[in-house]
């Protein structure tokens, strides 16, 4: 496995300054960072998924600003709130949400490709999906499903890939393979990642920046080696 990238000079910029309250729970990150892969680390209920969903546009913060690679997605001051479908983000939720009535190919190609340099046969080959293209998604293994979800999120050529615990449903033997795939996506396809996890090992393996959350608050942020337990 390759070493995590340390050099951040050309890394994309993420601005996550907002406050999102749901019931009694508030998550309020205040970060302006440059990284190729950001790990959102913390125990269950610490607000990792809420941050991811706020970036994807599935939850609307009460106030603040979200910008990805210099593109403002949300800004309460200018009343900017880019529609979910126009955010150009590849979202892979924890339960994957593969469309059950579509086959693998139809799932992967659901989003029309946006970036001309993205090559579908290459993407499916890279993820080892070529022999599965005509299968129904219901018959796939956990690892296969995971890769289909990744391919589907990547197909449109997203500005960033949002991953919510991508290894949760994958057996140990497959984890390594998927982690390698994520590094390939990050480096060879050049798609930055925001990665939710509660495993420090995973965070270290893919991220060059880690945010540690506890009950909605950012308690530490910086290079994984410095902030992760």
């Amino acid at each position, binding site marked *: 496995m390759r070493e995590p990238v340390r050099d951040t000079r050309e890394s994309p910029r993420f601005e996550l300054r907002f406050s999102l309250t749901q019931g009694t729970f508030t998550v309020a990150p205040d970060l302006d960072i440059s990284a190729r892969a950001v790990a959102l680390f913390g125990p269950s209920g610490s607000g990792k998924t809420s941050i991811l969903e706020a970036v994807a546009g599935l939850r609307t913060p009460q106030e603040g600003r979200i910008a990805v690679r210099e593109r403002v997605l949300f800004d309460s001051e200018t009343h900017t709130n880019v529609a979910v479908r126009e955010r150009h983000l590849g979202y892979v939720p924890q339960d994957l949400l593969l*469309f059950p009535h579509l086959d693998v190919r139809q799932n992967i190609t659901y989003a029309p490709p946006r970036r001309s340099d993205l090559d579908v046969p290459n993407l499916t080959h890279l993820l080892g999906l070529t022999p599965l293209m005509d299968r129904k998604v219901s018959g796939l293994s956990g690892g296969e499903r995971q890769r289909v979800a990744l391919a589907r999120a990547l197909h449109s050529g997203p500005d960033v890939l949002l991953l919510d615990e991508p290894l949760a449903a994958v057996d140990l033997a497959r984890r390594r393979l998927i982690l390698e795939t994520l590094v390939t996506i990050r480096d060879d396809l050049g798609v930055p990642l925001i990665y939710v996890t509660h495993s420090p090992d995973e965070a270290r393996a893919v991220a060059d920046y880690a945010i540690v959350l506890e009950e909605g608050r950012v308690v530490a942020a910086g290079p994984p080696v410095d902030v992760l337990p």
Partner: protein
Amino acid sequence: MEREILDIAIFTTIAALAATIVMLPPGIALAWVLARHRFRGKAVVETLASLPLVMPPVATGLLLLWLVGRRGPVGRMLEPFGLEIVFTPVAVVLAMAIMGLPLLVRTARAGFEQVTRRYEQMAETLGARPWRVFTTITLPLASRNILAGALLGFTRALGEFGATIVVAGSIPGRTRTLAVGIYTYTETGQDARAAVLLVISVALAFGAALVANRLAHVD
């Protein structure tokens, strides 16, 4: 006699199919709106949509008759064009569609409610516009219920009597359906004919209800 009865069976089936096709667009739209939206007056719309189910069919027929009769609001609009609905096959289809609609709406609505919102959100993150989300995700995922609802509506349409006889009458070869035929033949002591129609309606309704129930229960 055979010919007349066969004609009635064929006409009823075609009219019920037409009614099903007619009720699908408004039925699906209504089911989706009720399943996915909250708005002022929703309870009223909900109640209106199930009214033909709980109202005496004859009352529904009288209401329709008032609406499309030459003196009613719809009838008055059509009259300058020489169009009349009462006593035509259109009236049969209309009565059937109105009576079948609540069953379609109820079943389809349950289908839409079962579709996880998150699948739709997922499609949105992939850049799909609302219409595409609806046609490629919501509709296919709810399709089994919609089909079951359409079949139930079709079954209801096949057996419709009260509203049909009021608004379409019982004209042999033009508006006489199985249910209306059974009534008319019974009223004139033609029990043998009524019995044949009865057997045909039982067979048709049984088949359609069987398929509808299978669709609704298998997940």
